[in-house]
């Protein structure tokens, strides 16, 4: 019998040179912050400081918004075909430098290189390619004549898919003729700043894309800036509500892509082995730092025991560790703060009476880590069944009939995504129709494509990103 070990197959980071200090990208130039203040960006897998980035203040935001306003003058005078070609060029440059981006994404954010390399980066390029083609076909996109760009768009993005969220924001905004001020998340600013180099390389007119870094206070300065025409935000429901409130009474467009607590419904007539894989992918993809994660597993009572047994066995084969190791399935939790939040919710789940299962894998010493976790014997009232945990923690509930499954699935303020597993076609359509969710994955989970609209019902936000529908988030229907 051999001691079967996978090699540490480390993606080399030689390809990359991380600067000691970064500047904002405003008006086509890298400019030091007027605030003179910086924040550290650390690697969550080692806690090592990777670099420091500006903590932008009001003056910095002013100059970014002013530059976007000037950029709009140039951008709006280009032909749609010219705008299209800039986006194509950006897409191509990203493809060319994708290894560099993938390594940086895994270093700065903690996600496994397998995901940043095989998922994030290909999707980033695909988004720019997809929206590039729309830029000169807006007149064909919707059967209505009243759609116009907003103007200057402020975009605030989260830390779970740093560069992909940038692509989801910038590609459609530029394709529809807007210019942007984008703020990456406090803990994952580096790939956005590397993207600024792509803008330079592509010769994008100055001011069309402006990237400013900082924390929540910086985001709030963008939201409250009087010369912003639209805000696009992806992040927590809590912050989304604050933004909506800040914009009250102002003629500023808003789209919100917020939290979720997706139900992943497994009927007894599902293809069980694929359902197990889908459930694993649904919650453990990207450490569970996914707003549409399938965090509530809804099992039909008749298959509960069999399913849980298979699931636990499958979870044992998940490898937690160095994000740059190609064999790693689950990387580092993005920050200390997030790790504390996950830990405290899991403790609460145990106190409430949930039955805890965690895999036995070894965890690295430094950095922020959390074992893949499954709760069974959970009541719908427990906080682990209601609150978004945003970590590798799955909660199991049971149901008896399709009606009950739908009722439990919809019994939440969120409505971002849901999963349905059954080999019976009519049951899929029946269930999908009744789920209050913007994305329904049937016999699959966590699939994304630039052509496929994404966004929520209810308190998961409004507006869609991706697809033809995603264009509407950046076009204003004028009365």
């Amino acid at each position: 019998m051999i001691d079967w070990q996978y090699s540490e197959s480390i993606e080399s980071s030689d390809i990359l040179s991380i600067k000691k200090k970064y500047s904002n990208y405003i008006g086509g130039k890298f400019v030091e912050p007027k605030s003179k203040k910086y924040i550290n960006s650390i690697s969550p897998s080692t806690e090592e400081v990777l670099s420091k980035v500006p903590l932008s203040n009001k003056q910095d935001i002013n100059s970014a918004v002013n530059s976007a306003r000037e950029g709009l003058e140039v951008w709006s005078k280009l032909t749609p075909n010219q705008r299209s070609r800039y986006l194509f060029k950006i897409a191509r440059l990203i493809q060319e430098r994708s290894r560099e981006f993938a390594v940086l994404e895994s270093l700065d954010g903690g996600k496994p290189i397998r995901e940043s390399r095989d998922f994030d980066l290909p999707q980033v390029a695909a988004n720019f390619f997809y929206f590039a083609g729309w830029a000169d076909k807006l007149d064909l996109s919707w059967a209505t004549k009243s759609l116009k760009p907003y103007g200057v768009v402020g975009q605030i993005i989260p830390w779970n898919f740093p560069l992909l969220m940038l692509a989801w924001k910038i590609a459609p905004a530029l394709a529809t003729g807007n210019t942007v001020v984008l703020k990456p998340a406090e803990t994952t600013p580096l790939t956005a700043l590397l993207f600024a180099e792509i803008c330079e390389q592509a010769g994008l007119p100055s001011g069309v894309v402006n990237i400013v870094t900082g924390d929540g206070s910086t985001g709030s300065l963008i939201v409250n800036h009087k010369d912003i025409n639209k805000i696009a935000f992806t992040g927590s429901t809590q912050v989304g509500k604050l933004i909506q409130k800040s914009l009250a009474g102002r003629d500023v467009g808003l789209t919100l892509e917020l939290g979720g607590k997706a139900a992943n419904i497994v009927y007894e007539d599902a293809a069980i082995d694929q359902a197990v894989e889908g459930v694993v992918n649904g919650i453990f993809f990207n450490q569970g730092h996914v707003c549409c994660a399938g965090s509530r597993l809804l099992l039909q009572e008749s298959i509960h025991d069999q399913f849980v047994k298979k699931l636990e066995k499958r979870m044992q084969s998940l490898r937690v560790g160095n994000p740059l190791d190609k064999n790693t399935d689950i990387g580092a939790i993005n920050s200390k703060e997030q790790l504390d939040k996950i830990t405290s919710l899991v403790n609460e789940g145990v106190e409430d009476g949930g039955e805890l299962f965690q895999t036995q894998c070894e965890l690295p010493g430094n950095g922020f880590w959390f074992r893949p976790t499954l709760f069974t014997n959970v009541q719908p009232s427990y906080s682990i069944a209601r609150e978004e945990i945003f970590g590798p923690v799955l909660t199991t509930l049971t149901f008896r009939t399709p009606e009950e499954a739908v009722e439990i699935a919809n019994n939440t303020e969120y409505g971002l995504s849901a999963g349905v597993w059954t080999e019976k076609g009519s049951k899929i359509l029946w269930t999908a129709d009744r789920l209050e969710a913007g994305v329904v994955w049937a016999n699959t989970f966590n699939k994304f494509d630039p052509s496929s609209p994404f966004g929520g019902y209810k308190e998961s936000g409004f507006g869609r990103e991706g697809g033809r529908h995603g264009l509407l988030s950046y076009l204003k229907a004028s009365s």
Partner: protein
Amino acid sequence: MGNIKTSDVSIEWSSVLEMVHESRIDSVGLNERVSSLATRSIKKDSKLEALNMIVSMCDLTTLEGEDTEGKISQMVAKAIKPNPLDNSVPSVAAVCVYPSLVGIAKEKVQNSNVKVAAVSSYFPSGQVPMESKLLDTKYAIDSGADEIDIVINRKAFLEGDYRKVYDEIVALKEVCQDVHLKTILEVGDLKTYENIRKASLISLAAGSDFIKTSTGKLSVGSSRQACYVMLKSVLDFESETGIKAGIKVAGGIRDAKDAIRYLVMINEEMGSDWLNPELFRFGASSLLDDVLKQIKKLKTGAYQAGYYFPRG
């Protein structure tokens, strides 16, 4: 078929039917899982062990009309000592021949650990009356075969007569008794994953000790996807009955890299219990040579030419 005595190992038809009816597989999801398993890479130290393990799991095979005593002697010699210059390379698990050559093979393996397997039941088509299949099998066993590789009745299977498929295997297992029975599904004929799963469960329930992907006589041989379906069936069968059955993959596994991917999949999905020639085999002719090359390459650091290794 009439009068078949149900042996101890075979499972009641009613429960077989129940399992067969629950064969639900989503092919897209399955393909995605199998390709994600292919991205695992193993350590260099483990790699050498893995390659030696592959050798020990090989059923070195020749199944040709042109097979002669001389050919069998060559192959058995290679089976016992795959690399005469390196004693750390183990013997293969078995040699696999037609029934008429079992006697010769048996004579040549002598005291080694190498077993003699015979393909019977009118391999590869199986298109003869049951009486002939029984006779074919009985002949191989009487000639000393340690293991019997049979083919399922694909005609009956594709016509939906699952009962007939099951009954035939039960009858052949009766003939085999303690002789290891490997049942070939011929996945290339079955086409869909659900068919592969149904055939796996029927074969296991009928008392097969192993289920095997292919005869090697079709252009479509084994695939990791088919193997995945089979291993899931074996695991589900184990959880129903407590019986651990083996898997043999054959046909189309040309190189060491591919074989390692199979082992990674077995390890991830079934665990190390199945990393064992008693429960996992490769049906191979050209695979062995590549594995031997890779072993030498690992030891010497140099890429190898085929002529360093004896013909099989």
